[in-house]
């Protein structure tokens, strides 16, 4: 089958697949954020078994390639007779990946709340839950916003890896069009541009937020 693509066809196809990239990113970020919150609480739990398993979870995801995580999910579940469609494997894989990284980012924020805040709220007879809810988390959240937005960029870029397990997002579509048109330089440049359009505003915003958080601290 021979097909000819005009530049317009190419751009339209890339744009449509770009929507898939956006949907996957948003889903992974939202579900990963929720799961990450659970992992965070496990990670800062005082119960050792819970704390240690959360730590192991985080280290496993941070210490192995995203591609391997996707492969294991994809091939591992098929051992149990579960044949995940590519989009589901991509979504679940990225969600788990995101949850581990966000939990670790947020843990850093919780731990950077000065010890005096814990002591002060303890001396006011607050329970652990009250301390968290009213004293620690509000301060940690303020610090967490910039790195969290920054990590969103990693999630968007991470979606490109799901092309390898066959999910037809932006990169995969770019590859297919490149094979069909024999214009790899044009196609991959356009694909790169697509990611740049998605990521740059997030990076820019994250940097701006970071400056804001650090602004009041002179010297």
């Amino acid at each position, binding site marked *: 089958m021979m097909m000819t693509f005009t530049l317009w066809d190419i751009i339209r196809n890339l744009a449509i697949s770009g929507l898939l990239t956006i949907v996957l990113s948003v889903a992974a970020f939202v579900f990963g954020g929720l799961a990450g919150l659970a992992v965070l609480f496990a990670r800062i739990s005082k119960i050792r078994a819970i704390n240690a398993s959360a730590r192991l979870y985080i280290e496993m995801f941070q*210490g192995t*390639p995203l591609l*391997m995580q996707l492969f294991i999910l994809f091939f591992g579940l098929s051992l149990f007779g579960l044949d995940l469609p590519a989009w589901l494997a991509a979504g679940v894989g990225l969600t788990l990946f995101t949850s581990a990284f966000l939990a670790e980012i947020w843990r850093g924020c919780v731990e950077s709340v000065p010890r005096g805040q814990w002591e002060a709220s303890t001396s006011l007879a607050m329970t652990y839950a009250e301390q968290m809810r009213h004293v620690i988390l509000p301060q940690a959240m303020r610090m967490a916003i910039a790195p969290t937005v920054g990590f969103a*960029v990693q999630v968007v870029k991470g979606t*490109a890896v799901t092309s390898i397990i066959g999910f037809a997002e932006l*990169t995969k579509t770019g590859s297919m069009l490149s094979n069909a048109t024999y214009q*790899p*330089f044009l196609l991959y440049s356009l694909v790169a541009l697509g990611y740049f359009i998605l990521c740059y505003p997030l990076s820019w915003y994250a940097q701006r937020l970071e400056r804001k958080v650090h602004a009041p601290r002179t010297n």
Partner: protein
Amino acid sequence: MAYHFDFNFVPDYAGMLAHGIGYTLGLTLLGGTLGTLIGIGGAISRTWNVRPFAGLYRCYVELFRNTPFLVQLFLIFFGLPSLGIKLTEWQAAILAMVLNLGAYSTEIIRAGLQAIPKGLIEASESLAFTRWQTFFYVMLRPALLKVWPALSSQIVITMLGSSVCSQISAEELTFVANFIQSRNFRAFETYFLTTAIYFALAVIIRQALAAIGRYAIARRPQA
């Protein structure tokens, strides 16, 4: 469950796995070293606003940090030949690793340079150091020392990210894994083992970098 996990294939492919590990380590070592050097150059240019490098670096950093490594790799390996630049898998993989890490390390090292107290720079100026001497003897080591953990993490992240180099048939660890599983049809075991190897490599590289930080950069006797 009727499935039996079977790792008996490992000895047959040990040599190939070793090759893949070596390839991945080679990518990491070369990528880490050259990427850090690019980062030092970028950090100097941006800190001192050296024209035209400061502007070029700015564009480079933003472009590479806001696009996926996989797409950078494809652009280099599949795209550049249309401009007459034909690279082997190894060259393309290395180039992508170096450029990607260079963009991150530029920002990381720049943050380290900015964190150097102004007083230290004034002290070296008052001792009649040139700007270059100030940079080399007074700023570089404390800056690297300060950002070494961040730089180490980035190098590990880049090493893990190199697994997508399998997609241009660079014979690194994931490529070997893909090959093995296409022969033995033991996809899960193969990828499980490979993942474990990556995990071990990440731990080892992190330790090695920490040791370099302690002995080579801090260069002081342990208290």
